[in-house]
């Protein structure tokens, strides 16, 4: 009776499929000012945006690659096609979405049910939104949910976008933020007017479908004072064999006493470099709640940041990261307490398996003026075998002695006793392990709407057992 410590590697068939991309739609590889001009023209950018892109490209050219995290040497920048012409333009009716594209979404199990139960669907296929639907009642409440490109051209929102776009994540932030500024394409714009409580979550589903293509979608959300929004972002990409890059950017503005819950389930194919930047700024008495499940990708750098700029603002980060064979996921969260009486809480889990590496970085900064602030961080890692690695790297920069800061980290393995206990009730070893891992991940799944929690548990089971269902 030998005990298996290793479980089979993953069958990602359900997630890794891809239609042949249309080669004519691809522009030449490599990033030059000419390409940027081309993108800008194709999109009909306003003049400020054209300049912004070119300026960001300059910053990109002179900024060094990050040298402190997992290696991104496998990423051939000159080989990444930054823009792929979409096969369809905006659609408001599901029936008008081209069949091929529809099939992709349907195989991922996204469409109908969600369209009914959720307020709007903005799904990105290649580099542009192909499907977008906001229920009338959402629109009637004054909430704007559209793609960023159209919003940029709409006189009602143009100025709002100009004053918010890449203001909390400037192109100077890091090399991939600069790249994003130069080549961004697609993404969502959400505006929730003061006092509006949107009960149903808004959601978007991002997806890559072209070999060697980068995806640079930009999400800009503005939640005005006393308003409430839950935004769900789901990502999944099919497998392809050249290095793929995702360098998206999310900027969230949370007004006074407003709440924004931002939930993400990311599931990138395992050759992807996911170098994503997410940031929120929260005014007095406001709340940002991040719920984040990171799956897939070859390498990830992902550290959503919350800047608590107003008195009594609150940030909550609940996350899980799953690193399997060949994956090096460097994730974390950053909180900046920049006002008095601000509070934050981080609760994160990371799982590593079959040689996967998962590193969690928590960075808490408490500025001098942020007196009577409170922060608590709890990180737990689970290593599923002796080959895998999990690290926790807490960084704290506390500039006042009138703050209450707590940090707790735990590293564990699945206990043989627990596996035996579940097996003694008839679950085979793989299911027993998957169940224990799902249980470990329940900090995130209990924060997600039911269908997303189920999807996440399916992902975990898929990662654990090689089958789904």
């Amino acid at each position, binding site marked *: *009776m*030998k*005990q298996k410590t290793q479980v089979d590697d993953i069958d990602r068939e359900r997630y890794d499929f891809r239609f042949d991309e249309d080669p004519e739609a691809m522009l030449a590889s490599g990033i030059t000012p000419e390409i940027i001009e081309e993108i800008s023209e194709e999109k009909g950018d306003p003049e400020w945006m054209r300049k912004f892109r070119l300026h960001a490209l300059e910053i990109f050219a002179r900024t060094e690659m990050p040298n402190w995290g997992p290696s991104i040497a496998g990423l051939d920048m000159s080989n990444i096609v930054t823009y792929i012409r979409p096969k369809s333009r905006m659609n408001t009716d599901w029936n008008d979405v081209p069949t091929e594209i529809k099939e992709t979404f349907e195989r991922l199990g996204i469409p109908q049910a969600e369209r009914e139960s959720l307020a709007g669907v903005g799904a990105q296929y290649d580099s542009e939104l192909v499907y977008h639907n906001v229920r009338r009642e959402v629109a009637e409440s004054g909430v704007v949910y559209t793609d960023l490109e159209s919003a940029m051209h709409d006189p009602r929102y143009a100025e709002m976008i100009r004053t918010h776009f890449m203001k909390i994540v400037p192109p100077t932030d890091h090399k991939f933020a600069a790249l994003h500024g130069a080549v961004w394409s697609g993404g969502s714009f959400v505006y929730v007017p003061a006092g509006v409580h949107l009960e149903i979550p808004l959601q978007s589903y991002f997806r890559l479908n072209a070999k060697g293509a980068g995806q640079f979608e930009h999400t800009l959300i503005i939640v005005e004072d006393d308003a409430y929004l839950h935004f769900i972002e789901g990502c999944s990409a099919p497998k392809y064999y050249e290095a793929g890059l995702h360098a998206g950017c999310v900027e969230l503005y949370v007004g006074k006493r407003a709440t924004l819950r931002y939930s993400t389930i990311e599931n990138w194919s395992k050759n992807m470099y996911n170098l994503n930047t997410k940031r929120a700024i929260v005014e007095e008495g406001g709340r940002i709640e991040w719920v984040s499940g990171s799956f897939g990708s070859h390498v990830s750098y992902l550290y959503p940041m919350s800047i608590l700029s107003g008195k009594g603002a609150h940030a909550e980060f609940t996350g899980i990261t799953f690193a399997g064979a060949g994956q090096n996921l460097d994730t974390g969260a950053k909180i900046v307490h920049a006002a008095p009486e601000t509070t934050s809480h981080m609760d994160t889990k990371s799982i590593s398996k079959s040689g996967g590496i998962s590193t969690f970085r928590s960075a808490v900064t408490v500025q001098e003026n942020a007196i009577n602030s409170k922060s608590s961080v709890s990180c737990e890692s689970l290593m599923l075998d002796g080959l895998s690695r999990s690290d926790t790297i807490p960084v704290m920069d506390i500039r006042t002695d009138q703050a209450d800061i707590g940090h707790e980290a735990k590293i564990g393995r699945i*206990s*043989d*006793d*627990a596996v*035996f*206990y*579940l*097996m*003694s*009730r*008839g*679950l*085979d*070893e793989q*299911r*027993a392990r998957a*169940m*224990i891992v*799902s*249980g*470990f*991940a*329940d*900090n995130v799944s209990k924060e997600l709407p039911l269908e997303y929690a189920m999807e996440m548990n399916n992902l975990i089971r898929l990662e654990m057992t090689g089958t789904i269902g």
Partner: protein
Amino acid sequence: MALLKIDNLSAGIEEKELLHGVTLTVSTGETHVLMGPNGAGKSTLGYTIMGSPEYTVTGGKILFDGEDITEESADQRAKRGIFLSFQNPIEIPGISLSDFLRNALEEQTGTRMKLWDYKKQLKAAMEVLQMDSAYADRDLNVGFSGGEKKKAEILQLLMLKPKLAILDETDSGLDVDAVKTVSAGIAEYRKNCDGALLIITHNTKILESLHVDHTHVIADGKIVAEGGAELVDAINENGYENYVGK
């Protein structure tokens, strides 16, 4: 035909053998009691019958329904109808008692259950055990008191309806009322299933409402005495003095 036949079974951990040639037969419908001093090997025998990978069988075999299951994994044995109520049930965070039990049931029966039917069954079983229905939604055994964990084990027994139930000190750590409740649970199992019981215990309270067919006394990994219900009383009176170190 014997339901469970343990034939000259030796088993242990890497460093040492803990069971030395145990032979024991249980037939359907019977109630057996396994007694013995602390550290005698009772739990080890229970775990070994259940197929714990912690213990390696070094000699003899285990037959169930006439088939050799010595090499089978715990889940295969569970599917055959063997159940072990753990002396120390394990806490599994993040999985509710209800979800877990439904998964286990579906796995064992191979059929999906309607949520409504399942909930009804679960509620009925919890009522027998006087368990607050809120426990169904709590994480499996997490933060349960000692007594609550034991009740949760019997709840699983009632839901899974095994052919053979091994109860490892399910009665220890229970208050007077809880012993009665657990006894009622065992009676309910008896009523609903034509199963067999192998009860490991240091007390007699739990046996009062049951008809004991056989008693086995184990010491130092060996069966040292066999008898009927009267043996339980004898041990109660005189302890294990007569059986240990012989």
